[in-house]
């Protein structure tokens, strides 16, 4: 879809798992982006 819209888009093989496996840097998701679902306790 991004390509159709004219973006130069690529798909990263293996996703986050492959990235972490290769030990490339990650970060905690900013708290503003986290959707806290309800919990009983």
């Amino acid at each position, binding site marked *: 879809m991004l390509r159709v819209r004219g973006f130069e888009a690529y798909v990263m093989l293996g996703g986050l798992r492959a*990235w972490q496996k290769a030990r490339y840097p990650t970060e905690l998701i900013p708290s503003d982006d986290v959707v806290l679902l309800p919990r009983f306790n």
Partner: protein
Amino acid sequence: MTQYGHHGLFVASLLESLGFPIPGAVVLLAAGAGAALGVMNPALVIALPVTAMLIGDTLLYFAGRRTGWTLLGFLCRVSLNPETCILRAARSFYKRGHTALLVAKFFPGINTMAPPLAGSMNMRPRDFFRFDIAGALIYIGSYEAIGFLFHGVLQQIIHVLQDFGKAAGWVVAAGFAAYLGYRVWNFVRNRKGTTAPHVRPLEVVERLQREPDAALIVDVRSHGYYDPDAQRIRGSVRLEPNNLEALAETLPRDKSIYVYCT
């Protein structure tokens, strides 16, 4: 029931609680009738399915506790909008609280989702077991009582249930066909353009080292932002894939976009 007896009752109840498409209500009706006719032990007719359901539900409950929202995310994958499915299921279950466990078994699909949801939502094990056992007793007791009391007309009741099951089966089949059609239509529509080439993480890292301002990594996971300790690729930005068309306009056109998911 005459053929499979108590073992069949146990196995059918276990499989039903684990989400297998077993006509559990019919089995329980037959077990109730079997108890009335003296071919099945009345105590075992209650104890076996309750135990089996408790085993299945406990497995799903602890799977939910262990995997957090991943299991719910997996169950919601077939939904047209997984994000909304997760949010709605969690909020609806939270709103109804423990009482949802009392009636969940009467609703196919919900009976399988309730225990992992209770686990994902950190329901205390003591509360879960209390309400789950009560729910299992209500469900099993209701159908077996009908089977016990009306064993003389059980054939007609089973016919009605089977007809209802067939009708429900057609509805489910039509829904599944519509869902498949939607997926195929979506696939064909998106294939009209160029398929995005695949790159290895190493290529992305090298590109970023060469031209740090020429590339943007975009996280398009449909879910995964529900745990406070969740990780993402450093410097990546979030793009909710179900709103891709609207959100795409926020992406820079002068950069290469590298999308990734789980």
